[in-house]
């Protein structure tokens, strides 16, 4: 009962806390001691109450003097990758005293695979994280080597920005950001255990060297490190990434707590020395002349010199070499059967499965401005190292290449994410959050998206606030998490545009108008960003208004519009209806002096999209509206699906395993039919009514008793009686 006290108390103070509005505490110049003091002063009845209550529990290691304050945090984030950094930063910015534990301080936000951020669907994730106040977009904007917009002519919803990044610079810049937050503490450590309280709530973590750190919220972002094992050919060693030790013991600890774990596999290609590559015969791939940005914050929009990528292809020698040595590869040699992703096949997979294709494209991407490494995209392999160089040298331009790092595959433990709710808190242990590859995803962007949500929720949870959930329809982040917690994963999950049912509404250009108000409410968007956001929206609105009212007749402009669109232009046509015509872009308005110079390029894009596709957008929205009402109907968490005889046996099993939170989620679980959903609806509704009836009767009864008691006993005693 005692351990319930802090929670209850903090709940009772919830309304009080309103008088201390929590803005992200960003006092980077202040020394740590000072900021900690100010932290104490600012929040007299918030988190400290929660923290100090642990002392009375007498948990291990807590009695020792001197450590008391330092070992207690509001949030502990385990792992310093892309999920961990976002989580830790979000949490710290929300005012939570946050500890980031990582195996190697020099590998913070490392990009172990492709040195790139963005691409279809992934770029939407980056924009969304940025709109919420996350870091990944700013980092990619700051450290890019090359930027390109993909799918430019295929529609506004699938337009995608991709940046090649300097991976050293990226890691260093992120480290600087992480280090400069006064609420964020970093420590090298290998976590081997999570500490659990009496009520199945998290209390902290234990490290390999026997340290205990305490916090009411813990975020695990272990990436590929949990029991990680890397393979080159037949040789393998325990490692999270090449050259970095794996994290051992945590899997077993989580299993002993009743978590189900499984294993996934992924890989990364070889790196070659760019000085040994002959680029003269290769097709260069330049960046865009007009650079686009991930972040909505213009402060990050600093153009830099761009580097070039190159395109080469596999040859018949490549194919022959692979076919001759198939039995040397893990998959076809048959000594590894963990599941690799379909969208990231090894070169041997490509050649075996697509026999007819004579050649496959291979991209050569620089990994940084100051390093000679080149990433050989599309060429990951499980062949032994002795064959890898020979294989690389079959590629045109790489005939004399020097290999710097061999390609390797990595196997690691993950926790099927049905064990998490959509806040990313585990269903079993209150206050324990999972994010990133531990949930079975792949990609920096997917990790960052989960990271920011778990960071926000970890901070909110430690403060006793309700956690937040992004609905599937609200964002790619919501879609990602909804898929993770409902669907059965058979391979690492990568975000794709086709996973979103209403992607026309989830565009890059409107990520801010979808999510920044939420970021502001949560407390991750400061006044400067908020002002920028509001003035941007105002400009867009006014411009749309202007276009609706300005009319043009005849002239050169009309003539060019007619040529471009192939449609006649009537007299007194509004600029709005001109913009609706096919192939007419805002640029054309600018060209003839009908544009608005106060608008930035991206704002003009917004105006153009809003006007041009208004009909489609409206239709999608009303379509969405129709399903949302039913889909968002809540399902109680303690439903006994096995007792519902109107459900099919299969769906009873699936539903009890996944435990969906809404009807919509339930309907997305494989094997649950529409008839089952109807049965579920009826069951829930009738139970709700039964419960209502009961509550009413109880209230009626207790109301009578309370009235009777009110005269004799003060209200406070009731509080105590409940709390103790």
């Amino acid at each position: 009962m005692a351990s319930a006290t802090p929670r209850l108390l903090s709940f009772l103070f919830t309304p009080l806390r309103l008088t201390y509005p929590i803005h992200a505490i960003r006092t980077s110049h202040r020394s740590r001691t000072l900021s900690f003091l100010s932290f104490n002063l600012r929040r007299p009845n918030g988190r400290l109450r929660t923290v100090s209550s642990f002392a009375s529990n007498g948990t291990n290691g807590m009695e020792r003097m001197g450590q008391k304050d330092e070992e207690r945090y509001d949030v502990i984030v385990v792992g310093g990758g892309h999920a961990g950094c976002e989580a830790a930063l979000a949490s710290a910015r929300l005012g939570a005293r946050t500890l980031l534990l990582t195996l190697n301080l020099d590998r913070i936000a490392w990009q172990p695979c492709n040195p790139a951020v963005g691409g279809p669907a992934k770029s939407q994730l980056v924009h969304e994280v940025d709109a919420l106040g996350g870091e990944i977009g700013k980092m990619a904007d700051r450290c890019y080597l090359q930027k390109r917009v993909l799918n430019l002519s295929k529609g506004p919803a699938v337009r995608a920005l991709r940046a090649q990044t300097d991976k050293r610079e990226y890691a260093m810049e992120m480290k600087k950001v992480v280090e400069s937050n006064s609420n964020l503490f970093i420590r090298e450590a290998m976590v081997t255990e999570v500490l659990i309280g009496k009520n199945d709530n998290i209390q902290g973590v234990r490290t390999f060297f026997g340290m205990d750190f305490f916090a009411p919220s813990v975020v695990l972002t272990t990436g590929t490190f949990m029991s990680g094992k890397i393979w080159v050919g037949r040789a393998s060693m325990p490692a999270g990434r090449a050259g970095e030790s794996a994290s051992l013991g945590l899997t077993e600890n989580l299993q002993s707590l009743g978590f189900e774990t499984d294993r996934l596999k992924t890989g990364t290609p070889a790196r070659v020395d760019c000085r040994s590559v002959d680029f003269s015969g290769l097709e260069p791939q330049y960046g865009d002349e007009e650079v686009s940005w991930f972040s909505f914050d213009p402060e990050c929009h600093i153009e830099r010199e761009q580097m070039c990528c190159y395109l080469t292809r596999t040859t018949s020698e490549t194919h022959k070499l692979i076919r001759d040595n198939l039995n040397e590869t893990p998959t076809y040699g048959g000594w590894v059967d963990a599941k690799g992703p379909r969208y990231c096949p090894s070169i041997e997979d490509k050649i075996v499965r697509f026999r007819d294709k004579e050649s496959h494209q291979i991209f050569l991407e620089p990994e940084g401005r100051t390093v000679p490494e080149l990433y050989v995209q599309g060429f990951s392999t499980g062949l032994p190292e002795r064959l890898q160089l020979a294989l690389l040298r079959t590629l045109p331009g790489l005939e004399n290449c020097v290999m710097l790092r061999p390609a390797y595959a990595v196997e690691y433990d993950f926790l099927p994410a049905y064990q998490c709710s959509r806040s990313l808190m585990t269903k079993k242990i209150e206050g324990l959050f999972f994010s990133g590859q531990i949930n079975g995803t792949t990609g920096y962007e997917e990790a960052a998206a989960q990271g920011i949500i778990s960071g926000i929720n970890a901070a909110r949870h430690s403060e006793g606030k309700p956690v937040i959930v992004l609905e599937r329809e609200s964002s790619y982040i919501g879609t990602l998490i909804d898929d993770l917690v409902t669907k059965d994963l058979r391979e690492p999950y990568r975000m794709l545009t086709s996973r979103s049912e209403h992607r026309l509404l989830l565009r890059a250009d409107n990520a801010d108008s979808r999510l920044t108000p939420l970021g502001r409410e949560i407390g991750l968007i400061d006044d400067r960003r908020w002002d920028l956001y509001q003035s941007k929206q105002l400009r867009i609105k006014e411009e749309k208004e202007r276009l609706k009212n300005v009319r043009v007749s005849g002239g050169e402009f009309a003539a060019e519009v007619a040529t471009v669109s192939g449609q006649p232009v009537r007299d007194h046509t509004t600029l709005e209806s001109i913009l609706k015509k096919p192939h007419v872009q805002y640029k054309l308005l600018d060209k003839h002096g009908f544009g608005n110079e106060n608008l930035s390029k991206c704002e003009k894009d917004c105006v153009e999209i809003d006007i041009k596709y208004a009909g489609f957008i409206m239709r999608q929205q009303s379509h969405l509206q129709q399903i949302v009402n039913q889909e968002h109907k809540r399902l109680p968490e303690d439903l006994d699906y096995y007792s519902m005889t109107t459900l099919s046996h299969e769906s009873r099993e699936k539903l009890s395993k996944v435990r969906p939170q809404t009807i919509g989620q339930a309907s997305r679980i494989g094997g649950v039919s529409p008839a089952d959903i109807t049965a579920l609806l009826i069951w829930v509704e009738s139970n709700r009514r039964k419960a209502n009836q009961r509550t009413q009767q109880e209230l009626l009864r207790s109301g009578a008793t309370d009235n009777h008691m009110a005269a004799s006993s003060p209200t406070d005693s009731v509080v105590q009686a409940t709390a103790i």
Partner: protein
Amino acid sequence: MASSLIRLLLPWRQPKPHHLFPFSLNPTKTSFLFHLRRCQASTSSPKRLILTQDERSKGSLSTEREAIVGSGTIAAIVTSLGGGPAAVGIVRISGPTAVAVAGQVFRPVKRWKEEGGCVAWRPKSHFVEYGYVLDNDGNVIDEVLAVPMLAPRSYTREDVVELQCHGNDVCLHRVLRACLEAGATLAEPGEFTLRAFLNGRLDLSQAENIARLISAKSAAAADSALAGIQGGFSSLVKSLKIQCIELLTELEARLDFEDELPPLCLPSLIDKISVMRHDLQDALDTANYDKLLQSGLQIAIIGRPNVGKSSLLNAWSKSERAIVTEIAGTTRDVVEANVSIHGIPAMLLDTAGIRETDDIVEKIGVKRSEAAALAADVIIMAISAVDGWSEGDAKLIEHIVTSQKSANQAMTAPMILVINKDDCKPKDLLVSFEEICSGLFKKVVRTCALTGAGISELEKAVLEVRGLEPISSAGRKWTVNQRQFEQLLRAQEAFFRLHTSIEEQLPMDFWTIDLREAALALCQISGDDISEEVLTSIFSKFCIGK
């Protein structure tokens, strides 16, 4: 937006819902309980955020309706079917757009006359209106009473419109079909009751019964989902579905993996789409044809008095169904007779001769004749060979055409000119007025009602003008149920929009929206799920990835 977010995020800023606790008389205790309850809720249940509305498109959505459980507007025949003709049958429409759907099919007589039927129907709740139901092409299907019951004062607590039609299965099905075409979906068994229950209308004891009913029926439906589809139809749907998924695969793969794939060949893609659209149209035509086979044709025989309409009916139906005299205006009411035209059921309607008259009874009869003509699938205009093409005939046909037009009938029923009493005049004289009216009539047939000559030619002409072939050759004949038809219709609409998107040169991403919808509709028929199918297909078909 911001204020709604505040409400979502910070529930404690909401005014305290004191009304939730009508029994507590102690305010301190109320608020304490209230906090406790909310705190429990906040730990066990995460806060939900519906952020689908982005700030830029604010206000474009209709205001959110609460407590509507069903996702759309449903329609069904709620009176019993198949148990012999009843006097009245009811089609019920329920859901958020019930009024809009009803407004599309229903034309109140009063308004129709006054405003030409162009204004959206704005019914007053619980006030009965009299009018016509029109189909997609604007043909009158039936005269009905519409009973609007607006939310929440209705059975389902949603907007409900009930159309009271004539109790004839054919009529009812046609009215229902019109509702489906106007955007309603066919109600599942027990769905009205389900909605009533979920919207808090029925009491708890009824819940179990509904559950049992629905689980039993849906199990049966699931079993027969594919089994019920006959060979030809099922293979057509399957091949269309596969083509849809193939196209989606091609498009989606290029959206997600742009630089790893060769560019699309757009012209061939567009060709494929138009072929599919054509196939789908064929399927729908066949379904329509099939529907006609089931429900039968309505053939109205009109004409001036005393040209032998009743004799024609008698001769055709080989009965003495109608009274035949020499007196003009003998038939005063609509006389029906059933015949079978090469296996297709048809109902002949003999009508009062249309003329200006002072006789009250005959006047009503004339009105009915006009109504019958408006609702018929085929109109047979009878004239007498003795009189030739008279001025009266010209007036009459003009009258019919204008009334058809005023009923907003986009596609009028085909008309056949029958020159009766053929035995009384030499043929060569008739050629002239065949020419006069060849624009109006699809066919001209000479008959002699007395001898029965020309009846078989007339039957052929009827089939021909309706585009019906006698059911001899198999292959094109399937039975499509209402639900399958509805999905075919959805798919066709999606294809229509896809076609417009292509014509307007919208970017590729927009094509996928309607293609996906078409695929979804087709999958509903065969009972599959496509969500993962496209992805699987992308990965198996294309070599993608690092």
